[in-house]
């Protein structure tokens, strides 16, 4: 790591806001040397609670995040917020508007709000988000909130970098609840029916409850009966294997609560915070937290490898005259994409036999 980056890192650890901002920029830009920086950050992380908040546009995410931050501050905790907005697929430009809604804590530097755009990098946003979270964690933030529109897989990956995921469901989305079913609703640890003073809020709550109970009955994203039985069983036996027994069922034991809020008035925010805290305690007590963190790091390693190998190949392609010529050859019917991919990858496969992953693993086995 060069001297400038070292200074920046030291400044971040000492609590200089500008250094934190600068490091997040480096992460976002993938500036030269950002990897060394992030590597150094790891040693200082692990103290923050990371909360992901997602939901459809206009569900009230930013407003709720604002109230959440305000309440945490009243309780004496520092807050970092990463607000992600889409960027234009055509120009790459973006208007990042979440900050406007976060007015309650404005002027308070202990709430660090950072707007990020989905810069159209290859799955890179979830990596950048995870790294930015690490920077805030190392800085010493107690709570880190990631806010993003719940539109697709990319966003699902982003909020998965959080320990606890809250999904906002505004009233009157009865029909869209159906369409959302096989996606974002599955990742919720806490449901928030925001704008609960509006017509149809009760109905939305009821529909969510129904969905959860059906899920519990068929064992999908399960909880409910199954979890309750398992718990009752372990209560009865006092044998030694109860621990392992509960371990295997841990993921099934959390029944996502449904919280009603009116973010603009701050109604229900305390209950919401209690539920977030309850989920965190559940994670820690049940041992699920370690499992989750492990999964997250596994995913990070995979993503890094994927991106790096991809970058290596891109460089190789570039030096060989770019992909355009090959694409033209396909267009002229001379070859096809599969054949080209095979040709390019054959030497890579040969090299893989030399890659000594076991040696890397052995290093940490002791």
């Amino acid at each position, binding site marked *: 790591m060069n001297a400038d980056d070292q200074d920046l890192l030291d400044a971040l650890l000492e609590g200089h806001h500008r250094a934190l901002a600068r490091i997040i920029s480096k992460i976002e830009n993938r500036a030269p040397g950002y990897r060394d920086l992030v590597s150094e950050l790891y040693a200082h992380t692990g103290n923050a609670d990371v909360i992901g908040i997602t939901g459809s546009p206009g569900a009230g995410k930013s407003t709720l995040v604002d109230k959440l931050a305000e309440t945490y501050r009243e309780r004496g905790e520092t807050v970092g917020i990463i607000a992600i907005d889409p960027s234009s697929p055509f120009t790459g*430009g973006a208007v990042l508007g979440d900050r406007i809604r976060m007015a309650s804590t404005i002027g308070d530097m202990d709430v660090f709000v950072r707007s990020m755009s989905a810069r159209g990098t290859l799955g890179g946003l979830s990596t950048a988000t995870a790294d930015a979270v690490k920077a805030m964690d190392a800085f010493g933030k107690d709570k880190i909130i990631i806010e993003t529109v719940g539109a697709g897989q990319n966003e699902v990956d982003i909020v998965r970098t959080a320990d606890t995921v809250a999904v906002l469901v505004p009233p009157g989305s009865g029909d869209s609840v159906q369409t959302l079913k096989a996606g974002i609703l599955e990742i919720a640890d806490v449901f928030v029916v925001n704008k609960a003073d509006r017509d149809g809020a009760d109905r939305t709550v009821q529909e969510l409850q129904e969905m959860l109970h059906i899920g519990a009955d068929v064992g999908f994203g399960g909880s409910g009966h199954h979890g309750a039985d398992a718990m009752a069983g372990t209560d009865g036996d006092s044998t030694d294997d109860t621990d392992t027994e509960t371990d295997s069922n841990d993921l099934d034991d959390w029944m996502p609560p449904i919280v009603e809020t009116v973010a603009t008035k701050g109604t229900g925010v305390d209950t919401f915070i209690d539920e977030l805290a309850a989920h965190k305690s559940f994670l820690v007590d049940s041992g699920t937290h370690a499992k989750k963190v492990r999964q997250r790091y596994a995913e990070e390693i995979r993503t890094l490898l994927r991106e790096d190998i991809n970058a290596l190949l891109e460089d190789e392609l570039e030096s060989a005259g770019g992909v355009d010529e090959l694409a033209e050859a396909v267009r002229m019917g001379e070859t096809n994409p599969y054949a080209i991919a095979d040709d390019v990858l054959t030497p890579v496969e040969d090299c893989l036999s030399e890659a000594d992953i076991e040696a890397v693993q052995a290093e940490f086995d002791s």
Partner: protein
Amino acid sequence: MSSEQDEESQSQPQSHGQGEGRSIRCLVAKVGLDGHDRGAHVISRAFRDAGFEVIYSGLHKAPDEIVQAAVQEDVDVLGISILSGAHDTLVPKIMSGLEEYGAREDTLVLVGGVIPEEDRPELKEEGVAAIFGPGTSIEETIEFVRENAPER
């Protein structure tokens, strides 16, 4: 269409910023009590279409709030829109706030709005890079940002 243009239209979005993965970040700020943000909206949209990342502050912000946003968001460009005539008190406050966080040197500060000719030298002395009055073309502003956004 020439082959050169063809290439341009197919290039990755990020190539519109500065170098790989780099995008020009701007904060468009409304400071003080003036409530006219039409111009700020237009410029935000134009910057977006130019491929910049734009953070809009919203109306009626205090200088401290603008400084906080500029520092946290680590923007390359701070565009301040003032139509109230209070530029000679508000702009210096923002500049000294940036100074406090060590952000003054490498932030390109622009002022837009109604700024009388005789007030301009003073603002320039404060560290404002350019002042865009009524009638400035959007292309001119974008060009200025592209050429002067700090390399860092």
